[in-house]
């Protein structure tokens, strides 16, 4: 029962390459890469995009599709395809960097997340230091007061914090009504979690604010205790 993931790129190689990378971490997920024109040039193709949407809607067993795109006209082609698609309400366009967003989406999908959560997981990916998105800011714990929940966990998996655990943590937290930090960085950002570079035996301190604060801490605890499924 998983959501289908569509990649719309200008290049067939980019679409297929991004899927190849993401599929490593999500073996059960159905991907639909669309890239290039039908005569092999660089570009986006509405017919192929509509066909991918329809195939995904027919085959994917989850509650819909999440679409990742690369540059401007891929976004416009995906939006156009949505207008022609049979079930536009079940297709969500994610505004995210293609490769990192797809990896995050794939991991969330593999974990059984619904389409809206998968989209949120993809969109939680940002590059570099997290810019403050609003006045309150998603990262700084200052001014938010004491966290509703906090707990420290020791990493037991041999690889420590790398891409897959980071994606699992970020993907799950993105789907909750919570603001959570891990060792002070945004818990919904794969890149920031990876940049912590915590190894086996290292500590993750989770602090959470909001309605789902205890769910968030429990979620990370379960992942850590299971060694992120690696042991």
């Amino acid at each position, binding site marked *: 029962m998983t959501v289908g993931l569509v990649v719309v790129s200008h290049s067939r190689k980019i679409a297929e390459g991004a899927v190849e990378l993401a599929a490593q971490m999500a073996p059960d997920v159905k991907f639909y890469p669309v890239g290039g*024109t*039908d005569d092999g*040039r*660089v*570009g*986006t*193709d*509405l*017919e192929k995009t509509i066909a991918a949407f329809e195939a995904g809607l027919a085959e994917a067993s989850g509650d819909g599709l999440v679409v990742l795109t690369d*540059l*401007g*006209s891929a976004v*416009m*082609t995906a*939006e*156009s395809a949505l207008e022609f698609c049979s079930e536009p309400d079940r297709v969500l366009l994610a505004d995210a960097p293609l490769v990192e967003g797809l990896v995050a989406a794939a991991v969330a999908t593999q974990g059984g997340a619904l389409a809206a959560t998968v989209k949120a997981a993809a969109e939680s990916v940002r590059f570099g230091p997290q810019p403050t998105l609003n006045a309150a800011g998603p990262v700084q714990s200052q001014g938010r007061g004491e966290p509703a929940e906090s707990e420290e966990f020791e990493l037991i998996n041999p690889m420590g914090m790398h891409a897959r655990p980071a994606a699992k943590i970020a993907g799950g937290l993105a789907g909750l009504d919570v603001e959570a930090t891990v060792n002070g960085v945004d818990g919904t950002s794969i890149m920031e979690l990876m940049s912590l570079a915590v190894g086996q035996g290292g500590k993750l301190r989770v602090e959470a604010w909001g309605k789902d604060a205890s769910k968030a801490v429990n979620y990370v605890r379960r992942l850590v205790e299971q060694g992120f499924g690696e042991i």
Partner: protein
Amino acid sequence: MGLGVDWAVQWLTLSARLMSEHREELIALDRAIGDSDHGENMDRGFQAVMEKIAQTPPETPGAALKLAAMALMSKVGGAAGPLYGTAYLRAATALGESTEIDAVALAGALTAARDGIVARGKAELGDKTMVDAWSPAVEAADEVLAVGGDAVAVLAAAAEAAEVGAVTTDPLVARKGRASYLGERSAGHRDPGAASSALLLRAAATAAGFPEGSAE
């Protein structure tokens, strides 16, 4: 007298011819500030339009524009595909099943086309995009309509305003599209999308019988 399906088909035919004739020029414009494929993309897109028209001759102007929209969206490849595709599609929807288009319907279709481009590309006037050709064209069309101009006069005014609008993109710094990656370096070049828009609107006026090039 209104414009019928013959006008629409002639418009698309002249468009295809202009895209072919100006292919290298559009490529050169796009090479300066983009990915140098606009001329090739538009040429191929309109060749596909002509093939579709030959296969299934449309019976109304709206049907002709819808057919063009689908072909452009699938065959152009670049951003111009969904943008022009949306424009022609919205225009087709505005025209509905009418077999004869008067000046009012025509101005409405031009507005719908421009609104479609704005909705799809999210660009505003002054962003150095095809909107800088289409918006003045729509305004000029509305002005001519307001003083009682016929369909041919509406198209002639739109074509001329689009040509002026395209020229005004020369000094602008691009804020949308591939050229926006260049920032200040995009100034000093005409926007390829505005240039092709002016050609397409000129084709519309010529197809309606307005003497070619007389507005130059």
